[in-house]
């Protein structure tokens, strides 16, 4: 049977790097049963033993203040893990050992990993790992998750830690905790432990429960209420009433315990440059925002350059392969229907998937590097004021901004947010932010129909996006991020790190490959459906199913100002932004075969001319508005589904944007009828 390793650590402890490097492609992402928190699991084997790695949600401690923390705690209490691997940042040892201090009193086998030893050493910090190991009574390893060469030692240590499980010694922390309420005759900790009697909560010792009671932990309080007889319950309440600020006292005790460990195991060297010139600029109220903006523009440009080869391959290969297939089909005497299917669904779908995923890759890669360097935290800091008005954490700026590049990539980026509510709300906002392709389509339409007035549409578009944020925050924000759960920014700005390029490229490559495989399946399926609906053996548009459906629903779609051709293009925009232009090329310009399908990526040269001639201004207005707030491409929707893990939420967000875009189309059309 596989041995189970649980990874526990604060944000920025390098947990995800370790998880990814251990498990590579053997990962499974789902939700914790009955919860909305993501559960990531992976597998690897070492020396013939199978290991299952559970990546616990990142949290600062083991309190019960968020769903993530509750999930983490319940899992550890359940005793399912054969080893809990606790990661701390060696360069900020004292602070990050808090997680370990919060863990003391839980009877689970532990191994402590002092991650980022390279950073600590570079700053002149010397840590005596053996001395820490002796004090704690569990295996301790100096490590750097980003350096491949360190993994053999890690795996050996892990193997031994699983074979010979050891538990944290709680004696020293107990002593510190007993000092709470020093002016009292008897220590509140003792009194609490006594009052608790034989109560059990998973594998936690009474000391741990007493600490959580002192910290006014809701779940432990409830458990005590449910399980203790009346008299004992009263005793507990009385003791707690006498202590007062218990949470602060236990916190002080834990840091005293940490200090004693660190003091004797580390040299006291203050890091020299904690807040340099760059930090002063990056965190400046105005300069910081400008600086961030410049960096982001550069980052987006870098994304485009990185995506270029993939885009080139995808777009370039499509016509090449398609003409090859046509020639081969002709020489083999294959049925036209087969050739059409292969070309439009298989070849077209694969090429477009290559294009889209190359964008995702570059976005994830570039932003991952910014995060690794430590710049992301500064960026979040600079924009926290703005985002907190929406109830979002400053960290949301990264996914929101990268949405300008590629929505699907940005969706993956929302993972940096700590709570489910924050993530969902950021996703809702993100869908309104146009990706590069959407911007191109909207600008093309605006300049086609309204010529020199196009810049006003661009400005109006930006204004509408902000208006939609406001609407979303009324409809979703208040519910997803309740007022009483909004905690202002309390965040560390990690020191700058040198990025480990290769490692990041490998990690991002792996996750992109995962996305590509899923995307390919999805895109081929959707393309096949579209193809089936729009195939006519004689090439006559009027003989396609799509034509019939389109005509049948035209009375309804005209309500939103869209004749059936435009409505089908609108639907095509849900597949990819380019597809809506491709479909228009076929429907209005009659180029290509009966129906150029969703996989068609290019608009024909004179599309603009034809459109301007055929479509009235009010209709154009309707279609333009509808395109602005149409849902993102199929890949972005797929990644959103993967992130939220619930079809209900995907459907809700889709419904919201379809309603919003059609509503705007309706308004645009009727205003247009009045004006023009």
């Amino acid at each position, binding site marked *: 049977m596989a041995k189970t390793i649980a990874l526990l650590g*604060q944000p920025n402890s390098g947990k995800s790097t370790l998880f990814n490097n251990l498990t590579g492609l053997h990962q499974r992402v789902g939700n914790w049963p009955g919860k909305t928190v993501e559960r990531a699991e992976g597998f690897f084997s070492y020396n013939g033993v199978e290991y299952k790695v559970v990546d616990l949600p990142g949290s*600062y*401690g083991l*309190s019960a*203040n968020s769903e993530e923390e509750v999930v983490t705690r319940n899992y550890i209490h359940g005793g399912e893990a054969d080893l809990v691997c606790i990661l701390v940042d060696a*360069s*900020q*040892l*004292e*602070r990050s050992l*808090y*997680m370990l201090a*919060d863990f003391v009193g839980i009877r689970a086998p532990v191994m402590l990993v002092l991650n980022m030893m390279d950073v600590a050493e570079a700053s002149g910090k010397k840590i005596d790992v053996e001395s820490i190991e002796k004090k704690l009574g569990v295996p301790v390893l100096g490590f750097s998750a980003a350096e491949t060469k360190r993994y053999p030692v890690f795996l050996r240590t892990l193997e031994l830690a699983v074979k010979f499980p050891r538990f944290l010694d709680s004696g020293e922390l107990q002593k510190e905790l007993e000092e709470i309420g020093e002016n009292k005759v008897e220590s509140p900790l003792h009194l609490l432990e006594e009052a608790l009697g034989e109560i059990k909560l998973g594998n936690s010792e009474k000391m741990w429960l007493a600490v959580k009671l002192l*910290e*006014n*932990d809701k779940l432990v309080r409830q458990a005590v209420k449910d399980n203790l007889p009346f008299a004992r319950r009263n005793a507990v309440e009385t003791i707690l009433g006498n202590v007062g*600020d218990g*949470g*602060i006292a236990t*916190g*002080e005790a834990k*840091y005293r315990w940490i200090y004693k460990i660190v003091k004797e195991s580390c040299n006291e060297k*203050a*890091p020299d440059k*904690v*807040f340099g010139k760059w*930090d*002063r600029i990056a*965190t*400046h*109220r105005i300069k*910081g925002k400008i600086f961030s903006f410049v960096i982001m523009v550069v980052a987006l440009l870098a994304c485009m350059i990185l995506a270029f080869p993939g885009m080139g391959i995808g777009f370039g290969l499509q016509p090449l392969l398609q003409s090859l297939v046509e020639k081969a089909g002709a020489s083999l005497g294959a049925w036209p229907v087969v050739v059409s299917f292969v070309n439009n669904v298989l070849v077209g779908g694969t090429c477009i998937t290559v294009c889209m995923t190359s964008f995702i890759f570059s976005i994830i890669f570039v932003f991952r590097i910014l995060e690794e360097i430590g710049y992301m935290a500064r960026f979040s*800091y*600079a924009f*926290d*004021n703005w985002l*907190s008005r929406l109830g979002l954490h400053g960290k949301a700026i990264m996914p929101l901004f990268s949405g300008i590049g590629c929505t699907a990539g940005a969706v993956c980026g929302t993972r940096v947010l700590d709570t489910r509510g924050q993530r969902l709300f950021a996703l809702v906002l993100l869908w309104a932010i146009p990706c590069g392709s959407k911007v191109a389509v909207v600008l093309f339409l605006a300049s086609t129909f309204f010529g020199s007035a196009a810049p006003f549409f661009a400005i109006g578009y930006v204004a509408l996006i902000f208006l939609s944020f406001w609407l979303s925050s009324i409809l979703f924000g208040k519910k997803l991020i309740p007022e009483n759960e909004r*905690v*202002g*920014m*309390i*965040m*560390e*700005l*990690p*020191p700058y790190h040198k990025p480990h390029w290769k490692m990041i490229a490998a990690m991002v490559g792996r996750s992109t490959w995962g996305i590509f495989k899923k995307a390919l399946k999805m895109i081929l399926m959707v393309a096949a459906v579209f193809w089936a609906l729009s195939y006519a053996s004689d090439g006559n548009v009027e003989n396609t199913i799509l034509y019939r459906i389109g005509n049948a629903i035209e009375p309804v779609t005209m309500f939103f100002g869209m004749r059936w051709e435009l409505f089908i293009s609108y639907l095509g925009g849900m597949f990819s932004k380019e597809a809506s232009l491709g479909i228009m090329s076929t429907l209005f310009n009659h180029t290509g075969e009966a129906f150029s399908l969703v996989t068609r990526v290019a608009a024909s040269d004179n599309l603009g001319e034809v459109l301007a001639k055929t479509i009235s201004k009010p209709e154009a207005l309707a279609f333009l508005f509808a395109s602005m707030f149409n849902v993102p491409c199929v890949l972005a929707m797929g990644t959103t589904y993967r992130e939220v893990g619930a079809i209900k939420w995907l459907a809700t967000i889709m419904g919201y944007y379809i309603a919003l875009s059609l509503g705007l189309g309706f308004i645009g059309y009727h205003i247009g009828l009045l004006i023009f």
Partner: protein
Amino acid sequence: MQEENIRAISLGEMGENSSGNIAKIEGDSRFISRIISIGLTPGSSFTLLKNDGRSPVLVFCRDTVIAVNRRECSQILARVEK
């Protein structure tokens, strides 16, 4: 002790580049657990790196640069070291 308490001011009122130590943390247990888990406890000494009146305050404590939102700053009292 009394006298020292009088001199305690909120984090947001401190000048840049001044040092001090935390005198008191006020707030509900949720806030306290959050602020303690990031490393600020009564008695811990720190340097105030940034306080420009609007953005979150930046303090350096336990080898870490920590950003604390303005509203939350008023719940953290500190004694300034001369």
